[in-house]
């Protein structure tokens, strides 16, 4: 599955300035934005603090429908941290809808259990990656490095 298409709306998109540092290592210098989608208040708080400390502008919503609505209204986020189980609209459904809209943001799923079958099923909805929640400092840095390199 290829997710090269980016959002058709440019509202809220920050400018990307990629430089070549002379060693053919691209360094993206821009302000990243993230959306935390999770019905658990504590997890949202932890992930928000973690991302804010890493210099990422962060917003949080409590279910998949609110996430889809935000993108539909023209908001854009470089990174989405998507919880699997949520009321109203769960992670897999929200992910499918975002991909169907052509959203090319990095979507990282989080599950509460480290079950391979569960993670695979969630990945099938269109995730870039899947972790067990809550994300650790190491996890988040790995995710942001991947995002920075894309």
């Amino acid at each position, binding site marked *: 599955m290829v997710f090269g298409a980016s959002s058709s709306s440019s509202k809220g998109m920050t400018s990307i300035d990629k430089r070549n*540092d002379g060693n053919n290592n691209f360094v993206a*210098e821009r302000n990243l934005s993230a959306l935390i989608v999770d019905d*658990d208040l504590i997890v949202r708080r932890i992930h928000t603090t973690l991302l804010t400390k890493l210099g990422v502008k962060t917003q949080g919503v409590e279910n998949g429908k609110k996430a889809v609505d935000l993108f539909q209204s023209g908001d854009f986020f470089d990174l989405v941290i998507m919880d699997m189980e949520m009321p109203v609209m769960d992670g897999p459904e929200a992910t499918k809808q975002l991909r169907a809209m052509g959203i090319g943001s990095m979507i990282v799923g989080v599950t509460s259990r480290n079950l391979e079958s569960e993670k695979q099923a969630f990945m099938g909805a269109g995730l870039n990656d899947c972790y067990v929640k809550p994300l650790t400092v190491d996890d988040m840095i*790995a995710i942001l490095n991947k995002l*920075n390199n894309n």
Partner: protein
Amino acid sequence: MDRNQVHRQVALMRQSFFDQGFLDEQFIQLEELQDEANPNFVEEVVTLYYRDSTRLILNIEQALEKSPLDFNKLDCHMHQFKGSSSSIGAKKVKSECTQFREYCKAGNGEGCMRTFQQLKKEYAILKKKLETYFQMARQAGPKEIACRPKPKLDICPDLEKNYVGWIPSRFRYTFSF
């Protein structure tokens, strides 16, 4: 008791939480997020947890009073409660949550009720311990640490621009992916 002694007491208390299985690695992750900008982050999150989980415990209690028991609903409530408890590293509480969910899957109402009583006990014990711990930590005040040399991210100096202001203590000297 002088300041150093209080700090030692606080450190010993903290270590005992891990040694006795009350807390796990996730609590350390919370501590990693605490700094000058968020000086009481751990206490804030724990307070938020105890406030928010009161509602979840009430939901479970009410669901356990129904007859016949709705195991799907009970499991759903407990899934939420387990998630929150995991987030603060509440190891024993989390373990009881897992046990409760096993009983839900097996349709064992008595097992659920028994486990829930035990869960509430562990939940209350941890609350008391953490309250005492935070109180002592506040009395002890901030710990003075020797000035460390400015960290150097040797992979790519420009990355420091994105991450300026805070680098996890583990990465102070080398930055590895």
